[in-house]
């Protein structure tokens, strides 16, 4: 049927099926700024349009319903490649991270300002109430609204988005536009789904309805014969090898235990069959024609079940090792039915007893340490599974070009994707190109190869373009969650609070496959235990297979759960000793010059060694929090009767990449007009990494930001990078860019010295792009021209490689003030202060945005989020109606981020990591604050009102 309406002030008349949504119609007509994050629930608001001046969700409106209406999309505000006041304000306030939600926010603020030109904070909240954002933590949106409002009256209005650092530098430490922000704010084509050809085929997967079942037979014959079907795959016609989906460096510390289509389904949603067809409808119809016979097994649904003697065995195939031998007493002979498991090297595993990996170590004498203690406490903390929920689900577009497979991917690890996919589908790496598009949120889930293997194989074998995008239910059930963990902490201390022994025993639920099975739980130890100084410390880590949804990387890796356990236990110890909890932290924390002996046991994949810490800003961060939250004064009164106030403070740390393991590379080209092209291997997930590398180039070559363009994360055109994980972006990829810029600078000076006839030592680069000597000068443009023309010797290109043995720890102190309702168990966060040391903040406001966003994710994990399963292992809350992530309403009233930089000697311009650490403080700080308010210790996250009431004995 035909629908006539006005779109962005132009009349249009579109034909559609009666049931086509406005969202689908807009995208089909090339308006890609409307996006789908919740499959039509109306929860996420990313598909928003203005209809007759009001913001509505286009996923919940059929195209015929807009007959005669006026529809605006963000494209209207960015017409002629301009920026509206709101778009400019969002960029200035550093609100554009991944950018997937930005068009919706632009529309929301335009609607708001049209009806309320000087909006209050509640009005801003209300305006943004329909938009979910997982990156930003919402806080800086308030700044953007204020800036835009003021510019309505005074177009020249400006304000600093953050404190500025490093006055000796032109760009570093200063707020500059994020290099991709303008395109993202305009809603231009940037994401994988924006690249898909109209005739691409669509891939859909039949997931197992059972958590644990042998797949006895799969009949695909009817499906294969159906209209539009290009290919049907199942266990019988897929590549017969196992691999890991973990996007880690090779050889991976994760077992190769996953087949493209397993012989045994190990979780609800595990791949059973897939259909590639010319339309989504044809693919879905063919899926329903596939018949499967299962041999259903008892599932393993908890760590306790996995550990139990005689438990069902999640992986029962033959176990082998590339290097090393199986642990003594472990079982390696399979049942003859299941897929094999291949370990690259021993991980102290025993898969036939569901033990995917284990490790234990320590320093000192634990018996002696506990014997010396005046007080010993032992507590167990449980962290349930939470979902990364990037607003853009896992997605890939695979196509053939010139006999090569091109993967347009939303990934954190382009090179690991290339390596793993090429092996999985049986081709060499030179036949595969991975192009990382803009990523609509990764958060760790996109460190794994979740969709690329299957799409790549089908594109390679059929020659057809393949579009594969998880829906939200699949994203919840089959992508990656944070590992479930149970952590027992045993602490011994003297009466004055001095720790004499620290024992952490950790059991992790890695789910059906072993990606990150060792490294995530180890990270829970390695990013929490080194925060305290104790001569006697030990950890024991075991990672168990279960039949719940796959676990994997999630921002912070294991650290948020380790931090929750140890920091809360320290507070419980303080309570036991009658001490102020910050005083106990102060007595035991690491400080400048501390020798951290426990790092001898925490080598992250290689032998560890103790580290003598340089400068440490923890003392200053604790001091600032103590002052600003008036810690030493009586608590403030609650805002209403029935609510109780409590406060909590914790210290946190993370790393900056993996010293001795990872590497990053960059190439910087001087173009013929004197501008620069940065080819960075780094994978910018919306964090601002491309802006870091651009700044490095502009700073070192004396240019402005607009003189530098960045191409990144393309395995054909940019050099190798380990990927965006382990808080490595700024430190590794940023340092590679610095080295490339320094290399280019040295080459430019060398060539210029010959042209100018002056010694290199007399030459310096000064803004803007001028090499100046004592007698003469030459511009970079002229230099570039001369070097590539006529008798010029070569193009001027700098190359940088970064690897290090140096461990750079970012530290932080987080403080929460909450109100707890004694009758309902509700928790309100009235104040949240995050003090963090990221070394020199390269992009201060963007760094703060990372912290706001990290904290809000952790607030969600602490209070609301939990992936639930029934007694058959079926996930129960696989959508945003049932699984609640924070909206703008959950932002703390006083949400304060403060950067307390302590420069790192090897970091780029002294920078360290900033993002992941931000998730480590909320759970313990809130748990401690809840105890301070109502006297109960919450040892299981999330701290739901029901759990709080139960702890209070009211249920």
């Amino acid at each position: 049927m035909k629908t006539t309406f006005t779109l962005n002030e132009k009349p249009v008349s579109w034909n559609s099926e009666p049931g086509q949504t406005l969202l689908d119609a807009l995208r089909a007509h090339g308006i890609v700024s409307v996006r789908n994050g919740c499959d039509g629930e109306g929860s996420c608001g990313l598909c928003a349009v203005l209809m007759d001046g009001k913001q509505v969700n286009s996923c919940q409106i059929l195209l015929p319903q807009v007959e005669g209406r006026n529809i605006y999309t963000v494209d209207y505000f960015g017409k002629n490649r301009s920026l509206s006041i709101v778009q400019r304000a969002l960029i200035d306030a550093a609100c554009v991270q991944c950018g997937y939600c930005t068009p919706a926010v632009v529309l929301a603020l335009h609607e708001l300002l049209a009806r309320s030109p000087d909006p209050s904070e509640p009005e801003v909240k209300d305006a943004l109430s329909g938009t979910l954002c997982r990156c930003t933590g919402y806080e800086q949106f308030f700044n953007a609204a204020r800036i835009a409002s003021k510019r309505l009256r005074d177009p020249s209005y400006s304000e600093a988005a953050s404190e500025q650092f490093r006055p000796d530098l032109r760009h570093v430490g200063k707020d500059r536009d994020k290099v991709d922000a303008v395109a993202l704010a305009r809603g231009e084509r940037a994401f994988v789904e924006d690249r898909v050809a109209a005739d691409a085929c669509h891939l859909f997967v039949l997931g197992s309805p059972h958590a644990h079942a042998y797949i006895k037979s799969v009949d695909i014959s009817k499906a294969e014969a159906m209209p539009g079907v290009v290919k049907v795959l199942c266990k019988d016609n897929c590549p017969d090898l196992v691999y890991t989906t973990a996007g880690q460096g090779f050889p991976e510390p994760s077992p190769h235990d996953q087949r493209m289509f397993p012989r045994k389904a190990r979780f609800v949603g595990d791949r059973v069959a897939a259909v590639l067809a010319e339309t989504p409808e044809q693919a879905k119809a063919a899926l329903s024609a596939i018949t499967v016979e299962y041999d259903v097994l008892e599932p393993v649904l908890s760590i306790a079940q996995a550990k139990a003697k005689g438990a069902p065995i999640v992986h029962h195939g033959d176990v082998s090792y590339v290097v090393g031998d199986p642990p003594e007493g472990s079982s390696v002979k399979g049942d003859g039915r299941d897929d094999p498991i291949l370990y690259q090297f021993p991980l102290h595993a025993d898969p036939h007893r569901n033990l995917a990996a284990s490790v234990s170590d320590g320093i000192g004498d634990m018996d002696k340490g506990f014997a010396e203690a005046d007080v010993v406490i032992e507590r167990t903390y449980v962290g349930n599974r939470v979902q990364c929920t990037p607003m853009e689900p896992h997605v890939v577009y695979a196509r053939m070009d010139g006999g090569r497979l091109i993967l347009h991917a939303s990934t954190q690890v382009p090179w690991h994707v290339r390596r793993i996919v090429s092996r999985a589908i049986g081709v060499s790496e030179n036949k595969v190109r991975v192009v990382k598009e803009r990523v609509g949120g990764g958060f760790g889930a996109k460190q794994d190869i979740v969709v690329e293997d299957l799409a790549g194989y089908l594109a390679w074998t059929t020659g057809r373009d393949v579009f594969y995008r998880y829906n939200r239910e699949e994203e919840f059930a089959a992508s990656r969650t944070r590992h479930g963990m149970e952590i027992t902490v045993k602490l011994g201390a003297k009466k004055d609070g001095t720790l004499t022994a620290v024992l952490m025993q950790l059991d992790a639920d890695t789910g059906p496959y072993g990606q990150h099975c060792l490294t995530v739980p180890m990270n829970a130890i390695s990013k929490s235990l080194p925060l305290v100084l104790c001569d006697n410390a030990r950890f024991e880590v075991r990672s168990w297979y279960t039949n719940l949804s796959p676990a994997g990387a999630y921002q912070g890796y294991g650290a948020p759960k380790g931090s929750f356990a140890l920091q809360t236990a320290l507070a419980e110890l303080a309570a036991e000793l009658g001490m102020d909890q910050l005083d106990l932290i102060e007595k035991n924390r690491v400080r400048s010059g501390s020798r951290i002996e426990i790092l001898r046991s925490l080598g992250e994949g290689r032998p560890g060694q103790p580290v003598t810490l340089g400068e440490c800003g923890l003392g200053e961060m604790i001091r600032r929090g103590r002052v600003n939250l008036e810690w030493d004064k009586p608590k403030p009164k609650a805002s209403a009767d029935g609510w109780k106030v409590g406060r909590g403070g914790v210290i946190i740390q993370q790393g900056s990449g993996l010293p001795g393991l990872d590497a990053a590379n960059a190439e910087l080209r001087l173009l013929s007009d004197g501008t620069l092209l940065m080819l960075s291997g780094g994978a910018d997930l919306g964090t601002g990494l491309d802006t870091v590398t651009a700044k490095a180039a502009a700073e070192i070559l004396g240019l402005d930001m607009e003189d530098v363009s960045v191409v990144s994360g393309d395995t054909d055109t940019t050099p190798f990078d380990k990927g965006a994980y382990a808080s490595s972006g700024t430190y590794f990829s940023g340092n590679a860019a610095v080295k490339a810029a320094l290399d280019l600078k040295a080459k430019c000076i060398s060539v210029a010295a010959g042209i100018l006839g002056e010694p290199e030592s007399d030459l310096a680069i000064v803004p803007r792009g001028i090499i100046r000597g004592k007698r003469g000068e030459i511009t970079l443009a002229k230099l570039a021209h001369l070097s590539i023309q006529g008798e010029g010797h070569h193009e001027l290109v700098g190359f940088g490689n970064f690897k290090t043995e140096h461990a750079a720890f970012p530290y932080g102190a987080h403080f929460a003030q909450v109100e707890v309702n004694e009758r309902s168990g509700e928790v309100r966060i009235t104040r949240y202060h995050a003090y963090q040391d990221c070394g020199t903040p390269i992009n201060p406001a963007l760094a703060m945005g990372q912290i706001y966003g990290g904290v809000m994710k952790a607030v969600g994990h602490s209070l609301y989020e939990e992936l639930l399963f029934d007694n058959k292992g079926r996930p129960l809350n696989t959508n945003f109606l049932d699984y609640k992530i924070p909206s703008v309403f959950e932002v703390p009233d006083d949400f304060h981020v403060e950067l307390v930089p302590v420069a790192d000697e090897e970091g780029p311009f002294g920078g360290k990591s900033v993002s992941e650490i931000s998730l480590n403080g909320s759970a313990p700080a809130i748990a401690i604050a809840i105890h301070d308010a109502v006297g109960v210790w919450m040892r299981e996250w999330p701290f739901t009102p029901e759990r709080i009431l139960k702890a209070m004995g009211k249920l």
Partner: protein
Amino acid sequence: MVNEYVRPASLEEALELMEDDGSVASAGGTFLLTGYEVGRGRDMDCMIDVLQLLPSGVTRSGNELSIGSGTTFQALIDSKDAPACLKAAALSMANRNTRNRATVGGNLGANKACASLPPILLALGAKVEFKARASAPLTLDLDKWLAAPEGLVLRVIVPMAPGTLAAAGRASRTACDLATATVGVSYRLENGVIRGLRVALGGFSPHARLFPDLAALFEGTALPPKADIERVAKPLLTAISDHRGSADYKKQRGAVILADAMHAAEALS
């Protein structure tokens, strides 16, 4: 799937179409189309778009408020005539994008346990004017209509008796969540004694309804402390356990929001 979309020219035509199996009337569509993109929305052979046929707007005449069923939640909130308790209930649908589209009539017609408006409208003694096929518009108490919905709601008529104290309440996990429990109360305080108490709750039956047994507990008494209200109310509630919480917890939350609403209403006096 929606296989056919129809925009009828009259209410009578709409009602005739609604008699066909698989045909569903839609106003804003926010309930009906939830999850539609992945096939989770309600199956509709034919969507009958009735929005343009429904009266819209809020008007007050004497002690009576009339709300057109095509009025959006946001329009209700923006109305100068709607009472605070009704605006609060509408605002409990925290998502403005949805409020810009969702209608009063749709909220009643969907008749969900988590619906935002029915409890406070029930508590206020609202009536609905609706039209059934081949019939002149009829008026019925809202509680009776919700028990056996028929036709299309045209207007909601809300008594606005002077001296009436009323408040709405809601429990949910986050602000933008489906409600675990909703409540509406109204009463008068005569010489410090509760008179004419009406209590309605959502979340404790398939759809929101009046709880006269609860109201009877407090009729003729001074407003009890919150703890006393909770203690006697909780045993009278029944709930089911699900991923939003256990039955026991939901009953507790229901009792708490009831107590809060009764006290919030008094605070308006």
